[in-house]
């Protein structure tokens, strides 16, 4: 954590702890639903939990990027975002192949992991672009106000 500045560290801690709470909440709901209705939406319940933890991890990663706490000062954000975009696209394309069905008998199979991975990488790139765009617009607005 030493390569991040104080603000980045604070944001990382903040959204990690939010993700912890989110995960506890999701697991609790899943637990209650599982006890009362015997409803299982994935092949094994180990996979269910893995998907729930993926949701929490994706949440925290997106929040990192949106608040500018994902890349440290030395890393080139645009380069990494481009790389992640390519990786995400590749895993999404391979994830959607007909030989690895995602849903069998109404239950999610472990092939979803590839898709989740791809989705996460893609979301990283998209969120980074969104952040760049929002920052640019903010700067433009501030510039206009300055010159008016």
């Amino acid at each position, binding site marked *: 954590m030493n390569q991040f500045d104080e603000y980045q560290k604070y944001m990382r*801690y903040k959204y990690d*702890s939010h993700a912890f709470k989110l*995960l506890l909440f999701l697991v609790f709901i899943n637990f209650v639903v599982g006890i009362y209705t015997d409803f299982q939406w994935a092949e094994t*319940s180990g996979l269910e939990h893995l998907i729930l933890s993926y949701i929490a991890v994706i949440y925290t990663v997106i929040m990192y990027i949106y608040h500018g706490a994902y890349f440290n000062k030395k890393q080139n954000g645009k380069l990494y975002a481009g790389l992640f975009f390519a990786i995400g696209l590749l895993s999404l394309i391979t994830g959607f192949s007909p030989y690895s069905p995602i849903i069998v008998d109404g239950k999610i199979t472990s092939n979803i992991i590839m898709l989740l991975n791809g989705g996460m990488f893609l979301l990283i790139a998209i969120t980074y672009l969104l952040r760049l765009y929002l920052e640019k617009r903010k700067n433009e607005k501030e510039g206009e106000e300055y010159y008016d």
Partner: protein
Amino acid sequence: MDNFDEYQKFMRYKYGAYSFIFLMLLIMINYLLSLVFEVQWAETKELEFFLLISIALGYFIVMSVYKGAFFHQKYTPTVYSAIYFFLGLMNIYVSFSISFIKDGRVTFNSIMLINGVLWFLIPAAYIIREFVEKRRDKNDIEEK
């Protein structure tokens, strides 16, 4: 979170983050164990997960109490720790009358014990914190 001051907020975020990472590590190890060796140490997979979460939660509780970030500013920690102490003691006492290991696997009865231990950790960490602080104060005075 408005009832906590800046230091407490930071500490809560920090240890919340650590327990999240810790939990992710535990989940990953458990998933790999069940995938490769087909190990199952609790009755159902849900229960396994529940117990792993309890470990992470216990870590968070201990660290936030120890760093003085568990109780609000308005609350009196001694009263609350006493209440938690009795809650924990009751839960643990009741849970010992039922067996929580069957055929080498942890059963659902262990939830009561885990609950009791989680309650119990609060006063335990609080007492240790008070003890350490007192000793530190004493050392400071002696040095002067």
